[in-house]
């Protein structure tokens, strides 16, 4: 039988990764505190690309890499919109994607939030005036939060989520 104490006393199995960003840690602690005011214990996000240049996708997926590792703050990215609390949309909503964007939103259970990430998702950005796009995500879905940037950095995206949770917890409290 393994002495359970030895599990605590032995060296960590994972390699040391020397990186610490106090601002990030503070953001993480904050969002971890805010999430339960609105949802259970965690925040499930479905990412949806409605026509971005792919840099925003890269920054969103970077939130999962070891530098940020946002799962430890209660944030997870889910595969199905049916499991999602938040829909994170990138891109200026192309005509070719508009139908799929709507279907994805409709597949989500309520309460649900929509976050537009990146300049093009916020207001069409560089694609403004193109025949091929509708403009910002708010042209097709009710948007709760806009996170501008070309693209926004992982930390900026996290900051946006903190603001969203604070805003949502206020709404829950006042029953709006």
């Amino acid at each position, binding site marked *: 039988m393994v002495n359970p104490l030895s599990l605590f006393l032995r060296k960590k199995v994972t390699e040391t*990764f020397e990186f610490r960003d106090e601002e990030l840690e503070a953001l993480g602690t904050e969002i971890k505190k805010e999430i339960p005011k609105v949802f259970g214990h965690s925040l499930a996000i479905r*990412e*949806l*690309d*409605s*026509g*971005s*240049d*792919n*840099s*925003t*996708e*890269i*920054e*969103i*997926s*970077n939130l999962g*890499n*070891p*530098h940020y590792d946002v799962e430890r703050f209660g944030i997870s*990215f889910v*595969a*199905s919109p049916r499991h999602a609390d938040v829909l994170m949309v990138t*891109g*200026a909503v*192309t*005509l*070719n*994607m*508009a*139908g*799929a964007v709507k279907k*994805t939103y409709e597949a989500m259970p309520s309460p649900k939030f929509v976050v537009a990430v990146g300049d093009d998702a916020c207001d069409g950005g*560089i*694609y403004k*005036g*193109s*025949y*091929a*796009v509708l403009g910002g995500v708010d042209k097709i879905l009710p948007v709760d939060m806009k996170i501008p940037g*070309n*693209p926004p*950095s992982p930390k900026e995206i996290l900051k946006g989520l903190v603001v969203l949770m604070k805003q949502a917890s206020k709404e829950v409290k006042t029953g709006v």
Partner: protein
Amino acid sequence: MDIKMNKDTMELLSIISGIVEGEPELLNARENEIYLRLSETGFEDATPALAERKFSLIGLFCAEAFEKKSGFTLFYVFKQAGRAPVLVLVREAGKEKKVTSVAGTFPSASWFEREIRDGFGLEFAGALDTRRLFLHECYPEGFHPLQKAFKNGPIRWAEAPSTEYRFRQVKGEGVYQIPVGPVHAGIIEPGHFRFSVIGEPIFSLEIRLFYKHRGIEKLAEGKSPSKCVALAEAVSGDESMANATGFCMAVEQVCGINVPERAESLRAIMLELERIYSLLGDLAGMAVDVGFALVASPFFILREEVFRQNEKLTGSRFLRGINTPGGLKKDIPDSLLKGLPAFLKKFSRAFESAFDRAMSSSSLIDRFATTGIIKKELVSPLNLTGPIARASGCPADTRLDRPYGAYKEFAPEPSVRKRGDVFSRFEVKTNEIRASVNLILRLAEKLPQGPIFAESTGYAGQNLREANNPGATGYSLALVEAPRGQNLHWVYLKNGLVDRYKVRTASFCNWQAIEHAVLGNIVPDFPVINKSLNLSYAGTDL
């Protein structure tokens, strides 16, 4: 007009003169490109003869109201492996609504022709596929956005179209279809995959893309080149530097701008940094797709470190906003560059340790080896380029075949594998990261001092306010080796403004290889095959 010819372009001219009857009309020639206008019969004689001489069709695009012509002009860009200059055959479609297809001879033409048909409304007789490409069903019939008559702006579109896209039908006992996408289960770009499978093995795959069509080429029209750089950067986020450089090079060639040496070297350093972070994402993704987080994590850590390095050097994690026709908008101070060698040394140590860990896993090698094979025979007909081609036994690399900028003096070490499977692509990509690290070290060591921007520019950008500068008119083609392969940029300036911008990324052609690579593989191996190719949706859909 005084047209300068060199030995290489003379040779191309003599090849064509030897094929067609009568002298071809020489429109233009530069160091690495020659434009020949052919009659219809001349063109039809030339194409099969070029195929016989092992030329690949690397680009095909259309322009309306080109030079003094009315109607449509088609540009067929041919390149022979190992030969630097490209041969552009110019074909006047005029007011004709139909020309003959070359897809039977050059299969890479099939998507190009469909793209032109959508954009300009030009039909191709004998085309392999006449379905729409980037205009999905929501677009109205008869709408062709790249025609000059269409002024960019909102259009009437169908939110719930009544027609459906016709996918290839595979029928037979036990065959069933698996539709996937456009929205995938993960943080990735949208696209549709239609598998026809028999049990687990894939019998047929048809891809449908262009969900992200944003109208980049139309948006470029009428803009000044300096304003267009941001559009080039938006073609594909993780190729921002490569596409900005390609676009700038094309403009610089049109205007006869000589970019200062320091700017060329800094561009090359940034291009290689982009290659490193982009390829690291592929390696990490491949490890993720065989469920091996222990290898994925160190690659992800390194990639983030490179992003941070990019930000330190340029202020942008994606190296954006620094390139401009004529050079760079701002210098990277030596005080920042000084730290690069130490960073790369540390980087290499961590990289090798992650690589060793990957290679010590028999299950990883088992999943990679013999999976997703792309045969060498496909490379030229489909115009496959980049690590994909190099993992299938074709050494083509634009930096070596047709060196530009600082690559004229600093060549990367080539890496070629023959098997064409996922494992070969993994090996080639790891070698290319090593080669990029070495290249950056060499570039940084011999970095010239001096200006980073060419003073006289002939386009309507910085000098717009100078009333006596009418701006340049002309056209030129640039090829750059992006992390995914060769990207083509063609710019036609009229009085200093962009009249037509054609960009063809490596992904546009490379995507077509995936339909072949998956055949006979099981569906659960699709993600790792896809990741090993790592194709850009944004860069294809435009």
